[in-house]
Structures are given as structure tokens and as C-alpha cells.
């Protein structure tokens, strides 16, 4: 310790965050965390004051998705901590690096059912990569360093640090500490050593499998983005001329405009992506986890495929599907080594059979494109049309954040993702209400980029109050609200699988008045009801940069998302759009 600087734990906490290169945090103060909010006034860190703690968590996630840097949220104890459990779980399932600081009642009060006390570390144990309850002010710098280290290395994820009030409150002698720069040695993590380099022998084995495969597919997931491996993936795919499917978490990891890109697989994936996996003889899975929404009924999934599975988390290898070659490692490093191993084996080979494979795929693409029927004049807008217009009236590097439901699937299907880190959504947990706060977080992290949130009316009503945050904090996001007055995806399931018995899915067409509500929150509100109004409204929204804009698109509630693999069915039983049904064998 070179400089013997004495300070309170609260000051040390903020200083430690500054030292961790935190430039912005999202939060809301309250009793137990009050002493930490005082030093924020003098800090270089920008604090975004949210309207609900869930918003703080999703903003931190959106920030992390867009920038690759860990998102930071800070809230008080008790109900604030429980309000942020959903974003923690969301970040846990989607491997989003995030550090959450929660206030806690003073140490002596823990366990007494004190005011705003809850067992935060107990509650969040199952939804965080790790959590800490700090008991000494002196431990704050090393704990913060450890929290960022754990959140950002290995398989990224959320880390929570629970801080009792007495160790940060300057009026309490327990808060006195001597500042030090925490080093890696201070972290004391004897059980945490993530491996990043893949085993060379397994990589060679993978290269050999690839060389002989006749119907190979690169199945890439969110791990490509987490490991900053988009460029390496492009090199691998081009060298091998192997087609690529990008899962919901990996949209943008490989450019949609590339001739090798087949798009999204899974429950609402396009026909070619789903069938390419299904008929493949070798799936090269990179940073994906064989989620049930991708595999469909497991015992009918890609029955003839051998599996190469690369993941930084060894627990994913073989968790769902038995692997032929399982490689633990960072996707970027493993892909680079794999490229080298393939070159050693004489570079790419293109067996004759692969030509047939490619022509099968392009045949499917031609036969089964994504389709929808444009609405008749005077009828409600088609949501797909709105997405197409949104896509065509925004630059390629626009960041798109989505909620969860039909609109999310339309967004993933109809947008064109040509750059990594332009797509932000809640994949694993499927958190309705994710898009608005996530878009705000993304815009805070990437202020020069245009950020659109695509939302449904069900989602919008869950977190819309964060548009107040966006207005007041001057974060001019844009929201495309697809209002079909229903919980659309649930409605679709009730229509298809519950004999059209619609139970508790109708919200309301006119209540709330979204335009007035948006205006009340400081945004510009626009309502669009007919196709010819769509593009002009988007253009108008794009011209407004001093406040958030909400466009309410009144869309057709009867529209369903196709293709669809019904739950419990194999991917071969994919339902195409009814207009294409006659084209199936």
C-alpha cells in the first residue's frame, strides 16, 4: 500500500468502480445504499436514475450487449433487490456480463427481519454466476475486482455484491478503511480458473471430421459474440465454404447478407436453417447450447449429424446432445486454432457431395422464403411489413432491441443483421418488457448509434415507465410498438393448440392511449394505422434526436408467426406458412 489513504467503505466502493473503468451505472437509491450514493456526486461515473429497479438491471444488460463491457446496476436492499432478480436471471441465462451492487441492512441487523431486509445472496444464488456478501469495509476493493473478473471471464454472467450499510456509512466506525489498489492476487479465488485455449488434439480431430463431412453446418450461438469471434467465424466459414445458421442469441454474429448465411434456426427459424440442421451430417456448434427452442423434440433432432461442440463452459458439452468432439475453450481462440489445423491438413476440401448439399440448400431457400400476405386496403397493418419498412429505412449499424413474443420473432426474421452487437434480446429467460430498458442501456453505451426498440403492447405495459428515464436522462431511443391488442404469441398458441379458445389474452385496443401515454412521459408519440403511413412515420422518428419517440403501429391480431415447430414435435414437423403448405412433400 503506497498511499495510506483512509476513507469510508462507500467512497472506496465508488473509487473501486471507477478503477474498474465503469463509466456509467444504472440505479435507484434507498435506505441501505444511501451512503454509497453520496460519493457518486463527486465521481466521474454517470448515474442513470431509473423508475423501477428491473429497469436498472435490463439497462445494464443492454449496455453490456451493445458495448461488450460489463453493465453495472446499483440498488438498495429488500424490495429493490428482489425487483432486480429478473434481470439477474435474464443475464444468467444469456451469459451477459453484469455487476449488481445491492444495499443490505447493517451486519448486526442481518437475520432479524429488519426493515427492507431480505436474504439477497440467498435469493440470487441460483440466478447469478456468483455473489458476495461483504462483511468488512477493507474487503471492498478486492471484492469489486473479483466481481468484475468473474463477470467478464470464462462464461460471462451476472455477479452480485451485497453491501451492509454499516461498512459504507461514514458515521459508523466499521466503515473506516485504508484504500489500496486491489490486484489479481488480492482476489483470492482458488476455485476459479477458466480455460480458454482448446485442446490441440481435439481441435485436430475436429478438423478431420470437418474435412470428410458431406453436409456440414456451422451452428453458431451467442458465445461467438461473447468471445468477439465474428471475424474469426467469417474466416472459418469462407475458408470451408460451410453454411452458417445463427441462433436467436447470435443474430449479427455472421452477416445475413453473406451467401453462406442461412439465418435463424429453431422454433420460428426459417425453413432452410431448420432443415439444414435437421439433414446435416456434421453440426459444428460454436458457442451454442442446444436449447430446446433450437432442437425441437430432442430425440428427433438432426438424427444423422455428428457433433463438434465448442464452448467455454465444459458443463455445456454433452449436456443435451452427445458430442463426437467436445472442445472446451474460448470460441475465438478455438476457431483460430481450428483454421490453422485445417490449413495443416491441406486447407479446405470440397467433396463432390458438398456441391449437392449446397444446391439442396439453395433449392429450399428458393422454395420456402419467409412470406406473409400484405393486408388489404383498409385492414390492419401486417407486423412483418412494419419490420421490413423499419429495416429499409434505417442504416445497417442500427441497434435493434426486442421484447419477447411474436414481435421478437418478426424482428429476428425480417431485420437484416449484418454487424455483430446490433441485436439485443432476451433469449433464454424470455423476459417480457426487456426491450425498452435494454434499448436505453444500449443507447447510453453507444450514443452515436441509432437505437430502435421493437416492442409488443403486452411488453410495453410492463416497463414503459423507463421512457420517463429516457426522456429525463436525454437518451433518445426510438420505439416501434406493434400493438395488436393481444398477448400475441399466447394467442397464437391458443389458436393453434387450444382449439381457438382464447383465454385471457385480449388486452385492449384503445386502452391505454399509447400516444398520450408516450407524450406524458416526455416522448413524441405517433400512431400509424395504414401501410402508406409506415415509412413516413419512421422517417419522422429518425429525424427527432432530442427526445425518445414511440410509434404505435396498429397491427393485425390474427397474424401468426411462421414457420413454426410446435412444442414437443421434431424439427422435421415444421409448419410452414399456410400459403406454402402445398409445396411440402
Amino acid at each position, binding site marked *: 500500500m503506497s498511499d495510506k489513504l483512509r476513507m469510508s467503505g462507500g467512497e472506496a466502493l465508488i473509487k473501486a468502480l471507477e478503477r474498474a473503468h465503469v463509466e456509467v451505472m444504472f440505479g435507484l437509491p434507498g435506505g441501505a445504499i444511501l451512503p454509497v450514493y453520496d460519493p457518486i456526486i463527486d465521481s466521474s461515473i454517470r448515474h442513470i436514475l431509473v423508475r423501477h429497479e428491473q429497469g436498472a438491471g435490463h439497462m445494464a444488460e443492454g449496455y453490456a450487449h451493445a458495448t461488450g463491457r460489463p453493465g453495472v446496476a446499483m440498488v438498495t436492499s429488500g424490495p429493490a433487490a428482489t425487483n432486480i432478480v429478473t434481470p439477474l436471471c435474464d443475464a444468467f441465462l444469456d451469459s451477459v456480463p453484469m455487476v449488481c451492487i445491492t444495499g443490505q441492512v447493517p451486519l448486526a441487523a442481518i437475520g432479524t427481519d429488519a426493515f427492507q431486509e431480505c436474504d439477497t445472496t440467498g435469493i440470487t444464488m441460483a440466478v447469478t454466476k456468483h455473489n458476495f456478501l461483504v462483511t468488512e469495509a477493507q474487503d471492498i476493493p478486492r471484492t469489486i475486482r473479483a466481481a468484475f473478473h468473474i463477470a467478464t471471464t470464462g462464461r460471462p454472467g451476472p455477479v452480485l455484491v451485497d453491501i451492509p450499510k454499516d461498512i459504507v456509512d461514514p458515521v459508523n466506525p466499521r466503515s473506516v478503511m485504508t484504500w489500496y489498489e486491489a490486484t489479481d492476487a488480492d482476489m483470492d*479465488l*482458488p476455485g476459479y480458473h477458466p480455460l480458454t485455449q482448446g485442446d490441440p488434439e481435439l481441435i485436430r480431430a475436429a478438423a478431420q471430421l470437418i474435412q470428410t463431412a458431406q453436409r456440414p453446418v456451422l451452428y453458431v450461438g451467442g458465445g461467438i459474440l461473447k468471445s468477439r469471434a465474428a471475424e474469426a467465424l467469417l474466416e472459418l466459414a469462407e475458408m470451408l465454404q460451410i453454411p452458417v445458421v445463427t441462433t436467436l442469441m447470435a443474430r449479427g454474429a455472421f452477416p445475413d447478407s453473406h451467401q453462406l448465411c442461412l439465418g435463424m434456426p429453431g422454433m420460428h427459424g426459417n425453413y432452410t436453417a431448420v432443415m439444414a440442421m435437421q439433414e446435416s451430417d456434421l453440426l459444428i456448434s460454436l458457442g451454442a447450447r442446444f436449447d430446446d427452442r433450437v432442437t425441437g423434440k430432442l430425440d428427433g433432432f438432426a438424427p444423422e449429424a455428428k457433433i463438434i461442440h465448442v464452448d467455454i463452459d465444459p458443463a455445456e458439452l454433452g449436456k443435451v446432445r452427445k458430442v463426437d468432439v467436445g472442445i472446451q475453450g474460448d470460441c475465438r481462440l478455438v476457431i483460430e486454432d481450428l483454421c490453422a489445423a485445417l490449413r495443416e491438413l491441406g486447407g479446405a476440401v470440397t467433396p463432390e457431395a458438398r456441391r449437392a448439399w449446397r444446391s439442396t440448400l439453395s433449392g429450399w431457400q428458393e422454395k420456402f422464403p419467409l412470406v406473409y400476405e400484405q393486408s388489404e386496403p383498409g385492414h390492419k397493418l401486417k407486423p412483418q411489413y412494419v419490420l421490413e419498412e423499419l429495416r429499409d429505412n434505417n442504416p445497417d449499424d442500427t441497434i435493434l432491441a426486442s421484447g419477447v413474443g411474436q414481435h421478437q420473432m418478426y424482428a429476428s426474421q425480417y431485420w437484416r443483421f449484418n454487424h455483430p452487437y446490433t441485436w439485443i434480446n432476451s433469449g433464454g429467460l424470455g423476459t417480457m418488457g426487456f426491450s425498452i430498458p435494454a434499448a436505453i442501456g444500449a443507447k447510453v453505451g453507444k450514443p452515436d448509434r441509432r437505437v430502435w426498440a421493437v416492442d409488443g403492447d403486452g411488453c410495453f405495459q410492463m416497463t414503459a415507465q423507463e421512457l420517463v428515464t429516457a426522456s429525463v436522462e436525454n437518451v433518445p431511443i426510438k420505439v416501434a410498438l406493434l400493438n395488436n391488442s393481444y398477448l400475441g404469441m399466447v394467442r397464437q398458441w391458443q389458436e393453434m393448440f387450444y382449439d381457438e379458445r382464447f383465454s385471457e389474452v385480449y388486452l385492449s385496443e384503445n386502452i391505454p392511449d399509447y400516444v398520450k401515454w408516450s407524450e406524458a412521459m416526455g416522448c413524441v408519440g405517433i400512431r400509424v394505422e395504414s401501410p402508406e403511413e409506415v415509412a413516413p412515420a419512421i422517417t419522422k422518428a429518425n429525424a427527432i434526436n432530442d427526445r425518445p419517440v414511440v410509434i404505435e403501429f396498429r397491427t393485425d391480431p390474427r397474424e401468426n408467426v411462421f414457420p413454426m415447430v410446435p412444442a414437443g414435435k421434431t424439427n422435421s414437423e415444421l409448419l410452414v406458412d399456410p400459403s406454402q403448405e402445398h409445396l411440402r412433400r
Partner: protein
Amino acid sequence: MSNPDRFHTIVTIVENKPGVLARVAGLFARRGYNIESLAVAPTNEERFSRITFTVDVESAPLEQVVKQLNKLINVVEIRELPPSECVSRELMLVTVKADSRDRRELMELIDDWRAYVLAENTKKIMLSFSARTARLDEFEECLKPFGIVEMQRTGRVALPLLS
């Protein structure tokens, strides 16, 4: 315990910190794995504790159990010990009814099994007995006819065979 090979012993070295046992137990509960038995105590190194548990490999995919445990930040080391590769013991404390008419028979049984008498009065005898888990099961069966008043078993602990 029909097939003794069903039960594998997993030895973990964990950081000796508050809440670590809750993390391990929570993981088992969340992933739907059943713990057959569990023994926890500090090691010779104060920083670490040793948790030995027995899992039914027919109820849980052992590889996943080990991999998921490994993801816990506080878990430092994990070793899986199949029955053929370890020496295992379990300790039982048991209080048995021992009125005058059964007492002699019970004392013979205790002698035969090399259990220890820890305390006795005219009505009851308290014993300790340590052996492999299967032997404890057998001994328990032998004691039942006398009337078991109270019993505590520790769960299995194990060390690898000497190499």
C-alpha cells in the same frame, strides 16, 4: 441400497466460507439431483472444507453433477471416487433398548460386531459403530429387534486407495 455400485462418492474441497454448503445444496436441488448422504468438516488446512457426498448415479448424470459443481466459484477441487477405488467409512451412534432379558444377547452382538459401548444404564445402551455403509445397514438390521431408541449416522466419508 440394492446395488451398492449405484452410489458413487464425490469428494469436494471447498472454500471454508459462509454459505458455501448452501450453494452446493442449492445446486443439487435446482438441478434435480438427489444426495444420498453428505458429510462436511474443515480440512487440515483451515481455508478449506471437505464435503463428501454420495449420489445415486442411476438418478443423476454424474458427469453433469461434477461439471455443475465445478462451476461454483467456491469449489476448489472435485474428485469422483467409484466404490472400487476408495476406502469408505461411516459412523453410527445408536441408543438401543436393553432391559435385563435382552441384555446378554445384545452384549454378545456388540462384541461380535466390534461396536463400542459409549454409555449405559439399566434400560438402554448407547453404541458407536464405524464401518462401510453396507455393514452399518446390516448392523442396524440386527439391532432393530432390540428396539432402536435413537440413531444418527454421519453419512459416508472416503479417501482414495493408496497407490
